[in-house]
């Protein structure tokens, strides 16, 4: 569904060039959920923005559904770390923003919006303004907005990281439920190892400066998964431990000439 081939990116920063991504080759299969982990600044957001068509790679190619990505596509939607709701619009109107911009069928999408809001537990809050909602509720509304165009691909850049642990887990479970209702290819950036393991079919680990693909781990744990007590605790612990090792910097060993 998503294919990155030898993708590199160099930002022309103010203090010289920043090599954000280096020779990334990654394929995300249809209806797969890949979580992207890596230390801050290793190029995760940059990668997502390329898939979204918000940024062109310096070299290499990015394709979605077999077509090279030139500009943002209607069937790819992006969810940000901040809810990014328009403060003057009600929850419902915020969810319908893409419908207006993309000129989709309003009546049908209105019904869909109510459905989605119901699904994430925001029924009854349609007419509220964003500042009347808690952070978790705002992020739920934002999730509904990114689902309203029925995307094939959902790109999520640390969508739950500004939330408290419990809300975050609730939303992760909701995301899994939504995925059962409707198939979608998802790339999910997170800093949380727990979240990565809970959600992923595969976890892609990036290493920083320049951003390289360090390792891809298959998470073959049956669904639905929860963070609490479960029958696969051993396997979860194993994967988490592996991720932890990959993400923590190795003790400063001399790397020799290289």
């Amino acid at each position, binding site marked *: 569904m998503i294919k990155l081939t030898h993708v590199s990116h160099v930002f022309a920063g103010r203090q010289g060039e920043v090599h954000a991504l280096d020779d990334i080759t990654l394929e995300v299969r249809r209806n797969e959920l890949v979580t992207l982990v890596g230390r801050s600044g290793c190029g995760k957001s940059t990668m997502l923005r390329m898939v*979204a*068509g*918000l940024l062109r790679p310096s070299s290499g190619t990015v394709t979605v559904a077999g077509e090279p990505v030139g*500009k*943002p*596509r*209607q069937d790819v*939607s*992006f969810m*940000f770390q*901040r809810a*990014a709701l*328009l*403060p*003057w619009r009600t929850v419902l109107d915020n969810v319908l*923003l*893409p419908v*207006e*911009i*993309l000129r989709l069928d309003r009546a049908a999408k209105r019904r869909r919006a109510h459905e989605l809001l119901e699904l994430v537990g925001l029924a009854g809050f349609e007419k509220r*303004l*964003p*500042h009347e909602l808690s952070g978790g509720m705002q992020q739920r509304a934002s999730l509904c907005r990114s689902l309203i165009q029925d995307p094939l691909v959902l790109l999520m850049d640390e969508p739950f990281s500004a939330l408290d642990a419990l809300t975050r887990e609730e939303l992760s479970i909701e995301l899994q439920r939504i995925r059962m209702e409707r198939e979608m290819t998802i790339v999910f950036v997170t800093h949380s190892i727990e979240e990565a393991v809970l959600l992923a079919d595969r976890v892609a680990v990036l290493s920083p400066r320049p951003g390289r693909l360090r390792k891809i781990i298959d998470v073959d744990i049956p669904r639905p998964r929860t963070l609490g007590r479960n029958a696969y605790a051993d396997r979860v612990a194993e994967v988490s431990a592996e991720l932890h090792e990959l993400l923590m910097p190795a003790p400063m060993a001399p790397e020799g000439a290289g």
Partner: protein
Amino acid sequence: MTAVPRTRRIGSRATRRLVDWGLPVIALVVLVALWWLATIVFSIEQFLVPAPDDVIEAFIGQSGFLLEQTWVTLLETVQGFAVAVVVGISTAMSIAGSRLLEKMIYPLLLAVNAVPKIAIAPILVVWLGFGPFPKIVMVFLLCFFPIVISTATGLKSTPAELTELVRSYDASRLQVFVKVRFPYALPQVMVGLKTAISLAVIGAVIAEFVGADAGLGFVIVQSGASADTPLAFAAMALLGVISIVLFYGLNALEKVILPWAEENR
């Protein structure tokens, strides 16, 4: 005195309204009482500082005339302000929309704004005569700058995440502007309008001082010449009323059309 914070904390709608209106009224009453007291205690001459009752007497005595002059000044003020809103907001849009235009227009604007407006007033009379036009132009000149600056600032302050969001839908420039940038700038626009409206009345009066045959500024000049200070004070009070009404009018408008603004800034 101690009762005031308590009512505010209880904060039911009615009490809050009472506080909002009551406190300024109390302040006004106290001020007028002090003024009255001062004129009596120091036995100040009426033609220097008239007592409040002299002013009220002057107002009642010539209320028809004064209200007519108030209307003249109000009209000049509102017309000049309206022109400034239209021209100012469009100018701000072009500044915010294009780097090139910004670089061209901005320094010019700053230079024009640096010219003391009073210096232009006599020239405006020469150009446009004694009618309402030079007043409207003067009001416009004073209002224009704050409106442009704050609108342009508002238009340029769209948060990056909102811009990214609409870009991810491949929105056109027009859509971005209409759906995000402009509404986001509105609270900032209102700041500019409120600054401008207070200047607007000043602009009208300056222009009337220089050359006019009607308006409250004209009344003040005339009564100064004939040492009719109570009438001048009555005219000044009316100017104050105009300013306050216009300002609070804008405030009320803001509350109605931008209910979200207060909580987000």
